[in-house]
């Protein structure tokens, strides 16, 4: 078991959630509550990373931020390191790839709140922020938690884009999924097997968690 790789994977998952959750809550709520022209287009755009091959995302990130691009060179002279082949680059790739996993469950969570409950909250004298914090978030909470769990699990499973943008650097961009590939190439099937089993267990646990969560939502609604 490559503990460093597990650490990188977990940090990548946690970091992606930290970046995307606030965005997801803001944007998911916006999509749930407001109607506007072009909304269908925006919702489709949010879904694009789902159907995009990870290699496409990797390709564009490398082309845009790699050392051969002007943007990449500027970044490198500022920070000393390009965005690709760094953990931060992985975070960026992961954040983009996970947008649908964050936005959609949260959107569903807020959509499930009847609009007259929100109106009633206003008529109870709650300011918009109080409405959000005391009424909407507690009711949308299962959606928010589902988004976090799904994003975390999906990040753990990312491979193509991580390998392309990250480059398998130990302790920096070698996640658990990449470590499996790496160990197999080194003819170390035993290690690869342990790590593969770990990821499998995490995937199953995630599914169980999200299923339980959606059942709990049903119970509370009564």
């Amino acid at each position, binding site marked *: 078991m490559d503990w460093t790789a*597990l*650490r990188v994977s977990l940090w990548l998952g946690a970091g992606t959630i930290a970046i995307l959750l606030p965005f997801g809550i803001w944007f998911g709520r916006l999509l749930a509550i407001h109607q506007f022209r072009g909304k269908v287009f925006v919702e489709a755009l949010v879904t694009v990373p789902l159907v995009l091959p990870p290699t496409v995302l990797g390709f564009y990130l490398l082309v845009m931020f790699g050392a051969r691009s002007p943007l990449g060179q500027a970044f490198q002279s500022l920070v000393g390191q390009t965005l690709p082949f760094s953990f931060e680059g992985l975070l960026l790739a992961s954040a983009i790839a996970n947008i649908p996993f964050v936005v959609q469950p949260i959107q569903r969570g807020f959509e499930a709140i009847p609009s007259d409950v929100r109106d009633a909250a206003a008529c109870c004298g709650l300011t918009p922020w109080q409405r959000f914090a005391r009424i909407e978030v507690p009711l949308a909470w299962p959606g928010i938690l589902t988004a976090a769990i799904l994003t975390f699990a999906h990040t753990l499973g990312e491979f193509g884009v991580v390998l392309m943008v990250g480059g398998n650097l130990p302790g920096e961009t070698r996640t658990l999924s990449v470590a499996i590939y790496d160990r197999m*190439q080194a003819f170390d099937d035993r290690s690869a097997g342990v790590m593969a089993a770990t990821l499998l267990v995490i995937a199953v646990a995630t599914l169980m968690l999200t299923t339980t969560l959606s059942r709990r939502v049903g119970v509370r609604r009564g």
Partner: protein
Amino acid sequence: MLRRIGVLLVATTVVIGTGAGVSAQRPPTVAAAANLNFALTEIANQFKADRGTSVEVVFGASGTLTRQIQDGAPFELFLAADEEFPNQLAKAGLTRDAGVVYAVGRLVIFAPNGSALTVDERLNGLARVIKSGKAGRFAIANPDVAPYGKAAESVLRKRGLWDAIRPQLVLGDTIAQAAQFATTGNAIGGLVAYSLVLGPGFAERGKYAVIPETDHQPLRQRMVLLKRAGATATQFYDYLQGTSAKAILRKHGYGVPQ
């Protein structure tokens, strides 16, 4: 209960994060061609034992690693499987100098136990299997990114087998992956690196025959220090040209320059 799950997730992440060691000064990263899998790992361990410092090695196909270096990958030393890729980097101004040839590799034809293929240096066994019509998959490294793959292609062409075997070829992204295909019974065999089949556990998996050097361009393997190389990387570069390293390389089937 929901809150508890959230807290647990965060706590686990934090614990593993801090528990798995704070990364202070991370050792320099060395990019190496996949054929060096066993040899370089041993040399790096020896280096650590002798000098007390370590390097991290990342294995891959020479072409892929070259591409990554061009895109900004923070490697400090690059051990390629040929000379062309390092020269490309030197020309682009990414290296300290033109580097040195550290080893000469050899190609072998490998057949796993139970395969219909019989191995011999002239590839007659392969020709027979192809002619019999019973040929299954045959593994080589991708000639576009792996010099060993390119060498494999020349060998097959020289023996007049390239066109016939082409539809059966399975290409590994690296020579190590090709070796995996060749040894796991997914293929009748393959053209793989000598250094890999000398690795642990390979002897029992099948049989091999070394391909004559004259059948392909010599696999002169060059290494270069990248511009950002630090003291440790430079030390390692020198160490690789020293006697202990050379002995290990020879042990793994490489020719070494005098």
